[in-house]
């Protein structure tokens, strides 16, 4: 058969194991984008992944990389340990969901970012705890019904959703912080660019890519409705934006070097 050529195939950075994710879940897209970036940069033999606890707890089954499985929320600390031990040419990335990163692991992510650890953190934000059965997450939207907010998230009791990218952007040392989405092709293409930028800047400092994601199972919606729901409800509160690039640090991130004298 002459004129047949391969136009799409599994990245060689993914194993042939079948994803366990629910149909329509965007974890699969995120995995593929990371794998493609690692492949295109030619760094498969120098990349170490740190996987979280949550729906992506089995991510170590899917990346054909050396992988460390971290305790719930601790991926940035584990990545720190790896980063500080491995040769400088290695790439270390952590993959985390919103319960893992923005709730139990809030301390580890903030301090890894603040130390300027030379790692990349990919943050999947789908506004819910998927694996444990659809409980309220720190990123759950106001009024959103979950199994632990059956009357809708009450902001008087639970506060508002946490905006991680914005929060990390108050720190001086991160070099790249951006939020993308996985809800339609143009966003997916953009998300891959963000991941690539983060990996390319990793050896300069802390890099962070938040990806708005869907959880059709937890949200009780079809995969297609989930995509619409994400764009209609999440994007207004979690704007798609590059918050930090090298050399473009906002006011709050200006470096300050005191002379440490008693009087000026």
């Amino acid at each position, binding site marked *: 058969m002459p004129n047949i050529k391969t136009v799409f195939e599994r990245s060689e950075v993914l194993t042939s194991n079948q994803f366990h994710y629910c149909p329509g879940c965007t974890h699969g897209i995120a995995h593929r984008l990371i794998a493609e970036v690692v492949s295109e940069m030619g760094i*498969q*033999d*120098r*990349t*170490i992944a*740190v996987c979280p606890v949550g729906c992506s*707890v*089995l991510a*170590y089954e899917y*990346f*054909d*990389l*050396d*992988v*460390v*499985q*971290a*305790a719930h929320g*601790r991926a940035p*600390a*584990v*990545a*720190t*340990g*790896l*980063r*500080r*031990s*491995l*040769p400088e040419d*290695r790439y270390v990335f952590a993959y985390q969901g919103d319960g893992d990163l923005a709730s139990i692991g809030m*301390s*580890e992510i*903030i*301090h890894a970012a603040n*130390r300027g650890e030379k790692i990349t953190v990919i943050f999947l934000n789908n506004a819910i705890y998927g694996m444990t059965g659809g409980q309220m997450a720190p990123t759950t939207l106001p009024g959103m019904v979950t199994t632990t907010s059956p009357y809708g998230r009450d902001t008087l009791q639970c506060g508002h959703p946490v905006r991680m990218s914005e929060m990390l952007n108050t720190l001086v040392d991160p070099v790249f912080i951006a939020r993308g989405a996985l809800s339609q092709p143009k966003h997916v293409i953009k998300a891959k660019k963000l991941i690539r930028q983060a990996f390319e800047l990793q050896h300069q400092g802390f890099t962070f890519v938040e990806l708005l994601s869907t959880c059709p199972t937890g949200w009780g919606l079809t995969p297609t409705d989930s995509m619409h729901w994400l764009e209609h409800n999440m994007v207004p509160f979690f704007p798609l934006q590059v918050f930090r690039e090298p050399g473009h640090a906002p006011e709050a991130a200006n470096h300050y070097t005191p002379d440490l004298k008693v009087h000026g």
Partner: protein
Amino acid sequence: MGYDANLPVDQAVPSPAPERLLMKGAEAIAEAAIRAGCKNFFGYPITPQNEIPEYMSARLPEVGGTFVQAESEVASINMLYGAGSAGVRCMTSSSSPGLSLMSEGFSYLIGSEVPTVVVNIMRGGPGLGNIAPSQGDYLQMTRGFGHGDQKAIVLAPASVQEAVDLMSLAFDLSEKYRNPVVVIGDGLIGQMMEPVTFAPTVQSTTEKPWATTGKPPTRKRNIINSLYLDAETLEKHVLHLFEKFGRMEAEEQRAELYLTDDQPEIVICAFGTTARIAKSAIKVLRAQGIRVGLFRLISAWPFPQQAFQTLVEPTSAFLSIEMSMGQLVQDIRTQVAGRKPVEFWGRTGGVVPTSEEMVAQVQKLHHKLVAQG
């Protein structure tokens, strides 16, 4: 062995130290770790062990290592998990409440078979307690202090020199078994100044084909993991761990027997600081004609039962002396299994028992034994 400026930094040997140095226990522990090839230290400030991270923060950069002040003990132990996964020698130190915070990560280290060394300079508890010397974590440490079916070697030095020697042993054992090793001391061991001799600096020679350093095309990926969703598979993994724990129990028992050869009337059982004080008490008691000896645990886990069992027959009674409310005595009772009287005496709350108090306690027990004939 001198400093060679031509060596790349990470191969540089530490500047030459005199054969014998006068050092504070905490600093000696840190220096011993570096000379055992420890490259990374992760820790969070807590009294009474701050001299260890302070020393490390000054010294590690000199030998091409890394010191990271973590945001919490939870982060420290997980950084250790990452560094250990990369195959480098690394350690943390903390004190009792910090170890409680580390317990989840410690269980992951065991479940994922990541070698590393954890130092616990124990302080008074429960709760915030105080910063005074204590042995109140004996049960917590010797039972494997995380969740699940797990165990780890626990070494208990009684002098600064022994702390130095055991640090290097701790790194070797952690790699030999791919399991974390704990070294326990207390504020007295940490603060005490004693002359110490260091063995020459070594680099780990253990092959680590399992380390996650980046997957070359020539091998399969390495996965550091403790998740086994299938019950039968997890059982198999735990049985594999217990095969290792069994070997540790058989091969890594360490104890000191002091004046126990003459059918002692009383053998004091103790470790660390209390064992050291007990030796002075024993000298006084021996001068009074009481045949008393000491069984000192060097490995708190595995319990040195081979050595201990040789004492049960010839000894009339055992007295467990602790800086806790009767923890070690539980193991002694198990070992004696009702064959001889086992008594406990201890101080707690950070109170260090004096040699005079120990003398009085032994005399009391001795009178009781004599009265009972």
